[in-house]
């Protein structure tokens, strides 16, 4: 994978993570309703759509079973984003689980 394609993957991941944070803001609070909720969902969809287009551009160049696991770098990125932007608690067990999942995904993608 060249630097160009790796940058495309990073843009895809970052946009998708921003979208997920917006989705959680939309659905996670009882006081977020109506147009307020629709706005956050819309922002989430825009983030997801940007990530999706970059992902679709990457797909024809690599076998899916090889490129998809590389996306696992978004697990630690998401842990940081959830902690910083949503103030979600990261327990030791959760961090161990995320680390194991990331290692597993790297093993899958290393072949």
């Amino acid at each position: 994978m060249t630097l160009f394609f790796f940058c495309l993957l990073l843009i895809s991941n970052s946009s998708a993570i921003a979208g997920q944070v917006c989705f959680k803001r939309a659905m996670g609070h009882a006081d977020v309703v109506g147009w307020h909720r629709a706005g956050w969902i819309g922002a989430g969809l825009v983030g997801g759509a940007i990530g999706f287009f970059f992902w679709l551009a990457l797909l024809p160049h690599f076998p899916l079973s090889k490129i998809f696991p590389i996306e696992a770098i978004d697990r630690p990125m998401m842990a940081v984003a959830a902690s910083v932007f949503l103030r979600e608690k990261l327990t030791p067990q959760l961090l161990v689980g995320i680390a194991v999942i990331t290692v597993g995904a790297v093993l899958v993608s290393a072949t």
Partner: protein
Amino acid sequence: MASLTSEPDSAALNSEQIVRKPAWYLNPYVHIGLNVILCSVAQILFKVGSDHTPGGSLLGVSSFGSVAVCLGIACMIAGLIAWLQALRFVPLIIAFSLAAAQQVFIPLGCWFFLGEQISLIRWTGILVVTLGIVIIARPLARLEERL
């Protein structure tokens, strides 16, 4: 006499109804599982569709002419609805970690449906990802049992 004995029963029934667990299809973890399956199917459909459309488009727009890609988008939309429902009750980091099951389902789907090879190291990785999901899911499963 009958009414005296029936009163506590009806009270117990009412309290049981109040604390009764919601139906299984309302469980947010079922929605996460549904999201995982639908998104895995969608990714395989995207791969099939993009392989059968001409390349050269940087953002893959030409792939939208493919039936497989359109079906994949439909699966993604259904998966998104399930995901939003799950996010109402589950913290994002836990839901996102459990959704790592896609890392298992997609390579297995590619192997089974697309004939892509899975090496021994990749099988090991799939097992390690599964272990990570179990580490995160076990305390949640215990909590569910207590409720």
